[in-house]
């Protein structure tokens, strides 16, 4: 490191379950250039200052969704957040809020994986279809209905932005609901009735109090708050429709 090298302080919330009772802060002095992402900053720490620092990353181009962290208290992808936006002040880095900390910046996402499974994130055909019938055709309007909700990269920033999920971790939450909605409004899908049971349940959309921060922090403009709130209407319709139709609707 040359004398003239600029440096920036990165404060990391550390937690090693085998020796720490609770998380604690540690400050590192990292060489700074103005093209460095926060992810590159923590990578420098791991490579040169403290090899025991744990964090997730892969693509470093806002596609894989694995590098989410609280950066100065905001849920952010660390690969697309730049140190120059904070320099010369210190940057605070912490594991994503509302998830249990597994180790340092790594959170436990098992709960989310279970939710993802529970929404059946695949097309459930309305009726069996043979190969000979060929591919499904969709109009641009039919594609428009779900396209935005299919851009989710499962980065979980929206969960770290949702206080209702923090207070009640069983709430199915923004991204899983957005994906659920993505399949429900797909013209090829016939699984809506099954998925609505989840929407209407205790874990469902009515946990949401329209804070709206999830959609603010989403790096892919999925607008998960919109999916959740549209399904409040759908759920209410489901509830009242059961008085009109002998079967189906809310239980």
């Amino acid at each position, binding site marked *: 490191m040359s004398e003239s090298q600029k440096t920036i302080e990165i404060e990391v919330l550390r937690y090693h*379950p*085998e020796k720490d009772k609770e998380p604690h802060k540690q400050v590192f002095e990292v060489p700074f250039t103005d093209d460095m992402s926060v992810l590159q900053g923590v990578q420098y720490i791991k490579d040169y200052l403290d090899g025991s620092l744990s964090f997730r990353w892969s693509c470093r181009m806002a596609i894989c969704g694995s590098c989410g962290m609280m950066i100065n*208290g905001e849920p952010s992808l660390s690969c697309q957040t730049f140190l120059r936006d904070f320099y010369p002040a210190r940057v605070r880095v912490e594991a994503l809020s*509302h998830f249990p*900390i597994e180790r340092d910046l790594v959170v436990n996402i098992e709960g989310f994986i279970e939710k993802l499974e529970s929404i059946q994130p695949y097309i459930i055909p309305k009726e069996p279809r043979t190969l000979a019938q060929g591919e499904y055709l969709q109009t641009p309007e039919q594609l428009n209905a779900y396209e935005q909700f299919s851009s989710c990269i499962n980065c979980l920033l929206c969960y770290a932005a949702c*206080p209702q999920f923090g207070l009640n971790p069983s709430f199915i939450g923004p991204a899983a609901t957005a994906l659920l909605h993505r399949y429900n409004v797909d013209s090829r899908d016939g699984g809506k009735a099954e998925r609505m049971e989840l929407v209407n349940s205790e874990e469902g959309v009515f946990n949401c109090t329209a804070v709206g*921060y999830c959609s603010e922090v989403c790096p892919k403009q999925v607008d998960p708050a919109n999916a959740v709130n549209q399904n409040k*209407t759908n759920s209410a319709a489901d509830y009242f429709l059961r008085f009109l139709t002998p079967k189906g609707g809310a239980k």
Partner: protein
Amino acid sequence: MNKRRPYVRSMDGWWKKNPFFVEYMIHEGTALFVAAYAGILLFGLLRLAQGEAAWNAWLSAMKNPWYIGFQVLALIALTYHTYTWFKIMPRTMPPVVVGGQRLSAWAITGSGLAVAAAACLGLLALVWGMAR
């Protein structure tokens, strides 16, 4: 032995931890003024049903500076509540497609606010007209 010991952070004081949440609590808090003001109006209606003397007593009670102060405060709170209500509205409704184009969030918020303003002014004009 399993070395895993996932650490769960406390949610105490969560709403103070982010400016977005502080604003959320403020705009939710203004709903209390909406409820309080509705309560006052309903009470006025009750007094009206009880006859002229009761109604006049309620009217003069309303002239108390404390009540007037509260009404000014309630007006400010309600205005802010209305603004935040329509600001979040685009996130809560299905997409509105006009002429093949999806209506922008600001167009939805703007028309909501315009309708609210028109309704208030219309009501004011109506009451003004009746009172003259």
